[in-house]
């Protein structure tokens, strides 16, 4: 049996059975366990990097698969490890198909350019301009489609207790909803964020399957609006405070040092090592001001949102909870970002390791599924995957 977690701390208060309900489910708490080792993960990752250099990036499909095999199998729930059975060739086929899609789109754009934009008065709008603009326009919705389809692929290659996971629903439908909601949110000054968060989480949660076992989600945007509005207006105040603090700090420094804008231009045009170091320190200090004033607020909201989404999800009689704090969310969102940034990407396995540890430490599962009720699905999932994700989005592991 895989290692099971011994709770070091008391679990967050578990969900109670509905009042008046005769049913009293087993709500024994447990946590996932991640027993991967950072050194081993780095060994796999560095091999992947070396192969990437040799193959000019074409080995990435197989590298990603190896990393997933390691991470998945070192995570266990209720004593049973996950299993990843995806293959590199499936990812490569997905990528090649996405490439074909882009090629077909390029052909279409060429025809549009030839018959519409080639002649004046549109002549300044060149083929490259048309193609770039069209890719930006289709890339935005396709990234969402890719996210959903990529999740479907990953789940279809994931097994728990020998049972395949999966994802129902339409990736294109999700892409359409996500594009519309994000557009509407941007148009309303991001006041629709709770609506967007809940309505984009819902299809991903309720369409997830472990075998024949589905999930339900009982979240409503109205529940979280109060907290969001608090965050929204505090955020505006924090931005103003950060801008004033930065302006005063930089303005004061310039005056003290007696620099003119010409001096600055010279420094940047002919930078010495000293200039480079100073610029990096200033950038880091600016990020710190940003990190101290703005990001904790964002993490406060994100931690709340995650707690809400997790506690309002269930799989039959299995309930979920997390007590993830603002500080832990800061570590996840901000520190992980800094690790990747400051290591020029080499810290990625470390971030992955930290994330798996965070999931294992912060997710609580109440109850256990009726194993005999969950059956192997007949659907084997897509034959290939993640092409759109690879093409239109930053696609990590």
């Amino acid at each position, binding site marked *: *049996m*895989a290692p099971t977690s011994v709770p070091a701390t008391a679990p967050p208060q578990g969900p109670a059975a509905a009042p008046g309900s005769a049913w009293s489910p087993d709500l024994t708490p447990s946590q996932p366990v991640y*027993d*991967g080792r950072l*050194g*081993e993960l*780095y*060994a*796999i990752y*560095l*091999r992947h*990097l*070396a192969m*990437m*250099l*040799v193959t*000019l*990036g074409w080995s990435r499909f197989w590298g990603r698969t*190896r990393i997933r*095999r*390691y991470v998945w*199998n*070192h995570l266990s729930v209720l*004593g*049973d490890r996950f*299993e990843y059975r995806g293959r590199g060739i499936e990812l490569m086929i997905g990528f090649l198909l996405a490439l074909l899609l882009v090629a077909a789109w390029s052909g279409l754009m060429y025809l549009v350019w030839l018959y519409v934009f080639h002649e*004046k008065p549109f*002549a*300044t709008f*060149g*083929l*490259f*301009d048309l193609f770039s603009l069209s890719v930006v326009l289709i890339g935005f919705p396709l990234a969402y489609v890719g996210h959903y389809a990529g999740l479907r692929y990953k789940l279809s290659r994931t*097994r*728990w*207790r*020998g*049972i395949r996971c999966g994802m129902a629903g339409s990736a294109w439908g999700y892409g359409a909803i996500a594009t519309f909601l994000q557009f509407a949110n941007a148009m309303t000054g991001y006041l629709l964020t709770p609506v967007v968060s809940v309505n984009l989480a819902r299809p991903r949660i309720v369409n997830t399957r*472990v*075998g024949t076992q589905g999930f339900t989600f009982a979240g409503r945007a109205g529940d979280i609006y109060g907290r969001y509005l608090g965050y929204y207006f505090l955020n505006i105040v924090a931005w103003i405070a950060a801008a004033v603090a930065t302006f005063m700090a930089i303005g004061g420094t310039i005056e003290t040092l007696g620099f003119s804008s010409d001096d600055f*231009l010279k420094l*940047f*045009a*002919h*930078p010495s090592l000293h200039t480079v170091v100073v610029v990096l320190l200033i950038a880091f200090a600016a990020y710190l001001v940003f990190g101290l004033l703005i990001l904790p607020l964002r993490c406060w909201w994100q931690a709340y949102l995650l707690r809400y989404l997790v506690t309002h999800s269930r799989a039959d009689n299995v309930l979920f909870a997390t007590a993830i704090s603002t500080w832990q969310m800061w570590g996840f969102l901000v520190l992980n*970002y800094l690790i*990747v*940034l400051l290591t*020029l*990407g080499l810290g*990625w396995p470390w971030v992955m390791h930290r994330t798996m540890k965070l999931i294992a430490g912060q997710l609580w599962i109440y109850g256990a599924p009726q*194993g*005999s*009720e*969950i*059956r*192997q699905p007949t659907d084997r999932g897509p034959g290939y995957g993640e092409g759109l994700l690879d093409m239109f989005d*930053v*696609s*990590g592991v």
Partner: protein
Amino acid sequence: MAARYYDGVTADVQDVTLKVTSHELLINRSEDSALVARWPVAELVVLGDSHHEAVPPLALRGSEARLVVEDPAWRAQLVSLVPALKPLALEPVKVAPRLGTYSLAIVALVGLFWSAIEYGTEYAVPLLPYTLQAKLGETVLDGLLADKETCQGQAGLAAINRLANDLAREAGYRHEVTVHIVEGGPVNAFTLPGSILVFYSDLITQAKDSSQVAGVLAHEIGHVVHDHPIKGVARAYGIDLLFKVLTGGYSDILSTFGTGGGALLAMRNGRAFEREADATGVRLLEQRGLRADGVSTFFEQMIEKEPSDAASAAGIWSSHPPTRERIEATKRPPTGRPAFSAAEWQALRNVCK
């Protein structure tokens, strides 16, 4: 040997004990020893290996059932009984030596990749089919000239194209060079892949004499004969690829840094190309016995108009070397035959009329 058995039909878990006979793996329920399954040894497969999976599942070929043996000692024992199951218990990875080896390999490969970009393009680019280069150049030219008026004076175009091809042949260049003249400014000229040169007419009308136009033309021919346009594209693509491969494209902000770094390297390449084109241009004029002081006098004229020198002020962000440095490098006496005859020069001055 204790294990966990998943039947592949439901998510039920059974704690089982294993017994290996000469042909079969017998799987019995732990609690009552009831036989759960008999798997022929020849049909057993290990899914994955112990270097990637913490516990590689054991399966029967073609079946969805799984057997998981958590205890490494028992896995090793199973392997000793059935050697074909070796991936169940591979030698543990020695992490430190492996990390060291891969790190060294990566450093060496980055060096190799970098050298291939820096020096390999020198040899690889001429091997690129010329028709492809020409197609690329024509596509860019179409976009650039879409809303511009080009000068159509036949005699002037013939003059500048004649000199361009004379200089190119002097350098042993095999392809036909085509010069286009765009009406108006800026005072500039540039080269596209496929031996396509673009001159702005302001450069011709503001030139003090024909040697300056010839000097600029010779400089552009320097770009052509060294395949600078296509080398620039290849190097920019190579640097971008190296950065993406190394970082895995895992962070937007890293991509931003990468783009900035790539731009800086492109500028550095640009400055090197300009120096090489300057030197080649002057050499070609001298080889043909033509006046070769036009390049430096053209730059002197530029400095007179803009004493602050934008290239020098922009420093590492400039695609061209400082103008004063270029004047020093290309300074030549005003000797030699004129590059254009009086009639040619007159026609060139009137090319847009």
